[in-house]
């Protein structure tokens, strides 16, 4: 195996390779922006802990809001930091398949466990 082979086989980022370094500069800026957004989202998540500062009416939607925030963060990290946005679709599909199977299967399993209903009490 020649040196070149190793080099090209691992060069990766085919897309990137086509653009010059300036693309990377702009990506870096994107990364920082994304990180800032992530930080803000995390801060918002944390705020839900301090229930007292919120009117009671909103509190009911905390779980939903948290899930939305969580999914957004998940998306941002996997799309930008993990490059799924720019990378080959097959990678996205593989990862998504895993996520979708996991989410669906485990949600169904929890449903079968009566997870969403009230407390489970041994009757009589």
């Amino acid at each position, binding site marked *: 195996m020649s040196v070149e*082979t190793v080099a090209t086989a691992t060069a990766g980022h085919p897309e990137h390779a086509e653009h010059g370094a300036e693309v990377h500069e702009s990506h870096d800026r994107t990364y920082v922006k994304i990180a800032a957004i992530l930080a803000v989202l995390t801060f918002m998540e944390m705020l839900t802990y301090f229930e007292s500062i919120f009117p009671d009416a909103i509190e009911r939607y905390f779980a939903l809001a948290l899930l939305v925030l969580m999914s957004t963060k998940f998306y941002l990290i996997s799309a930008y930091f993990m490059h799924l946005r720019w990378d080959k679709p097959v990678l996205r599909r593989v990862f998504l398949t895993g996520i979708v199977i996991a989410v669906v*299967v485990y949600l169904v*399993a929890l449903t079968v466990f009566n997870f969403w209903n009230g407390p489970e009490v041994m009757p009589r």
Partner: protein
Amino acid sequence: MALVEREPLALPTGAGTGVAIEPLGVLARPRTKDGWRSWVTTVDHKKIGIMYGAAALLFFLVGGFEAMLIRIQLAQPNGTVLSADLFNQVYTMHGVTMVFLVIMPMAAAFANYLLPLQVGARDVAFPRLNAFSFWLFLGGGVFFNSSWLLGGGAADCGWFCYAPNSGVAFSPTHGVDFYSVGLQLAGAASLIGAVNLIVTVLNMRAPGMTLFRMPVFTWMQLVVQFLLLFSMPVITVALFLLTFDRSFGANFFNVEQGADPLLWQHLFWIFGHPEVYILILPSFGIVSEIIPTMSRKPIYGYPFMVFSGIAIGFMGWGVWAHHMFASGIGPISVAAFSISTMFIAVPTGVKILNWMATMWGGKITFNTPMLFSAGVVAMFTIGGLSGVTHAVAPADTQQTDTYYIVAHFHYVLFGGALLGLFAGMYFWWPKVFGLMLNDRLGKVHFWIILVGFNLTFGPMHILGLQGMSRRIQTYQPTDGFTLWNRVASFGALVIAVAVLVFLYNIYSSWSSWKKAGRPNPGADPWDARSLEWSIPSPAPEHNFDFVPEIHAQDDFWHRKYGEDDKGRAVRIASTEDIVQKGDATDVHLPSPSFYPLILAAGLPIIGYGVIFNRFIAIPGLLLFLFGLFGWAFEPATEPGDHAEDGTHGGTGGDDHDAAALAAPGNEEAHVG
């Protein structure tokens, strides 16, 4: 699992960077080309495939011996051959051995040997990792069986080992510990193998070999590997919880603390149902190769075959609770899973009928592989149909945990998976070993096994409907089970004879082949269709002299035959002219390595440590770390070879060799 997490990372860690380091000067890359060392250190997918097959056959004899013990015990009421305790161990070990150490590795043997050949690659994507998978599987299997001697008794909880019966309080020997750790090891091996094979198929196809030109066998194996990829982690979780409960006092199945015993069942069957398709789809793939070849027709409805396989793979995720119809999961869940289960019959039926349509109008050569394939079509259907009767949930409450279920799964596992694997062995034997198995003995084998199999498992339908529970170590004379149990036990004896015929066939074919001066069966003894037949038998170490360019599905066949205006095949080239000669000399292959074996050897030792004494784990851990280190810093080739410059011989590089061996591709993968 730690291994699974860490392993793929070892590769990039060392990927092709820098100078070759020889750690401590020991274990330079082995050079041996033959002798036992060449097997121990091999990273060749073909040798690994053969070792998978051999190990699976050995485990089959073990599992079969256990089955015989079961049948001897049950041959008459109030049997006393085995104590209740021993019986429980024997049937548990039989089930686990057959599923995890026979069918899965045998399918892995075919996958390993054939996938690279069928897509036109020189090896799998990560050859050393491939060797590691094999050794880990073997280690797991041996570890698991060592419980007979070391565990104070083997696992005695059934192959699905329901909690809380698997807890320390109810199963105080170490058998269950061996079960959980042993399966963990074998499972990690399967997971790593799955990553490896998926990458191979997606990335390393020959030019022109689009996904929809791949043989059906490759497709089915691809589906299987995806199923493994996503289902293995689920049982990994379950087994970890069990191990933590038993070894570290966790409370996952501690009902006194409010744990839910159904948690195990869900985790097990979320894995378990995809698992049964993991067991059957390789066999479906094999049959899909043999039937067209022997019928001299292309597979009927290739797209339907492929998509039904994918559909089975997906639907397999949505039916697991059909194993739990009686566990009290609530009527709505029961109804939903009942219906989802039934509809799996649709894609499966498509396969059955397409096979029949392939045969229809063909000119079928009924040699041994074809007989076994036809046997699969007929016998699997019986098992599938009883499966549908289980899917009818109210009916299943009368059937579940009776011999009717035992009949179902032996018809699909034996009549489907195992017969298919036998078919594959007869079919690819000349390719793998360069000699044909005796066809006459093969037919004897087939007919005896068909009769024996039906005698054994056919009566179990009746027994089950008459109320015989499974996993009972004996029954009463007044139960009315005696007659059919006798028949079943007799049938098992007939199967054993058939297996002996098979073993004898291997031996006698080999010895008469040797006597006859080792005649070569030629590259293409069956006038077959896929790429592996375009290279000499046995397949040369480098697979292809040159990587073929693919223009159509069944490309090899189309090089041999054209079609006349009536759509009939006419020969356009002689086989000898188009097959490769296998004499290329300058093909660079990944070098063998000790490290896969060393790395894999460390893990069972750690396993013993978890079970018995943390100190035992230390040498295992050291071995493992040494293996990891050596693996990462191993030079890509033998020292002195190819060392043109200082930066060459990058660590961990041989897995890049495989990438280098990958043929140039021409299109993007279409993966869903």
